[in-house]
C-alpha cells in the first residue's frame, strides 16, 4: 500500500511534470492561455495517461520487444481518439480552444515516456498510481500556469468576468510570454524545492 502511495505522490511534487520531469512541454505552453484550458488539457491527458499505463502494464509480458514502441503508440492513440470524440461531444467550446493539441496528446513525450520507463516494468496497480499521480501533477502545473497567464495576461479572474487589471500584460498571453513565464516558474520551483 505504501508503494502505491509513493508512486502516486511522487508525481505531485518531487517529480512533477513538466517542471521537475521535463517532458510533455508542447501543450503546456499552448493551452495555458486560460486556466480553464489548462484544467481541460490536464484532465484529458490524465485520462489518457492512466488508461494507457493500465493497458501497457497489463500487456507488458505479451508485447514483443521489437515492436513495443509502435504498440504503445497505438494504445495511446486509441485512447486519444476516444478523448477527442468525447470532448467534441460534451465540451465543444473547450475542444475548439484546445484545437490540435488534443490529438497531439498522442505524441506527448510524458505519456510515452511513462509507458516506456514505468508501465512496461511494473504491475498494473503501481502503473495506474504512477499515471494518476503524474497526471494530476501535470494538471496542477497546467492550472497554475494558466492561472498566472490569465490573471496577469488578460487581467481577469479565471472563470469569471471580473477585470482586476486595467492594463494586463498581453505579452503573457502570447508565445514569448508563455516561454518566459514557464522558465521563471521553473526557476521559482527550483528555489522552493531546494529549501
Amino acid at each position, binding site marked *: 500500500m505504501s508503494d502505491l502511495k509513493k508512486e502516486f505522490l511522487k508525481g505531485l511534487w518531487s517529480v512533477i511534470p513538466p517542471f521537475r520531469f521535463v517532458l510533455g512541454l508542447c501543450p503546456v505552453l499552448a493551452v495555458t492561455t486560460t486556466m480553464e484550458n489548462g484544467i481541460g488539457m490536464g484532465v484529458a491527458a490524465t485520462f489518457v495517461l492512466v488508461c494507457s499505463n493500465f493497458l501497457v502494464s497489463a500487456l507488458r509480458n505479451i508485447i514483443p520487444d521489437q515492436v513495443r514502441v509502435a504498440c504503445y503508440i497505438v494504445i495511446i492513440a486509441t485512447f*486519444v*481518439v476516444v478523448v*477527442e470524440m468525447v470532448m467534441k461531444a460534451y465540451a465543444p467550446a473547450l475542444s475548439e480552444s484546445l484545437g*490540435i493539441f488534443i490529438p*497531439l496528446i498522442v505524441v506527448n513525450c510524458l505519456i510515452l515516456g511513462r509507458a516506456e520507463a514505468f508501465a512496461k516494468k511494473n504491475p498494473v496497480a503501481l502503473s495506474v498510481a504512477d499515471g494518476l499521480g503524474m497526471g494530476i501533477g501535470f494538471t496542477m502545473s497546467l492550472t497554475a500556469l494558466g492561472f498566472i497567464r490569465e490573471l496577469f495576461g488578460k487581467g481577469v479572474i479565471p472563470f469569471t468576468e471580473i477585470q482586476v487589471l486595467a492594463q494586463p500584460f498581453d505579452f503573457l498571453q502570447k508565445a514569448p*510570454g508563455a*516561454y*518566459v513565464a514557464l*522558465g521563471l516558474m521553473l526557476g521559482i520551483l527550483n528555489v522552493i524545492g531546494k529549501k
Partner: protein
Amino acid sequence: MEYFTLIVSAIFINNVLLMRYLGLCPFLGVSKKMETAIGMAFAVIFVLSMASFITFGVFKLLAIAKIEYIRTLAFILVIASLVQFVEMFLKKVIPALYKALGIFLPLITTNCAVLGVCIININEKFTLVEALVFSVASAAGFGLALILFAGIREKFELARVPKPLQGTGIGLITAGLISLSFFAFMGMI
C-alpha cells in the same frame, strides 16, 4: 505568390516552434550542441516532407470511407512506420547521413511538429502541393529556430546563470525572447 505567402508565413510569421509551440521536447533536449541541432533539423525536414505526402493520401482514403475521426490513429501509425523505413533506407543507401543523424531519427516519431503539421494540412484544407510546400517550409522554420537556439545555448553553458535557472529555465526564457524577436515579422505580409 500564394505559395510565397505560405512559405514566409510558415517560416517566420507562424513559426511552428516559436509561435505554434510544436516540437518543444527535442527543442530543449537536442539544442545543447550545434551539430546535434543541425542533424535534427535536417532529419525533421526529411521526414516531414514525406510524412505529409503519405498522410495526405491516407486521409483521402479515410474520407472515402467516411471515418475521418480515426485520422489521429492512422497518421501516427504512418509516421512511426515511415521513420522506421527512413532509418533502414538511410543506413543502407546514405550511411554517412544515418551516422550523422544518429539517435535523432527514431526520436522524430514523437515529435509533435510532425504530427501537428500533418493535422494542420488537413484542417486548413490544403491541396497536395500546398500541403507539401507548407510542410517543407514549416520544417525549415523548425530547423531555423532550433539552430538559432543551439548557437545561443552553447554560449550559455559558459555564462554565470543563477542556479535555479540553469539549464531548462534559462533555455525557456531565451526561447521566449527569440520568439519575441520573431514578432517583428508580423507586419511583413
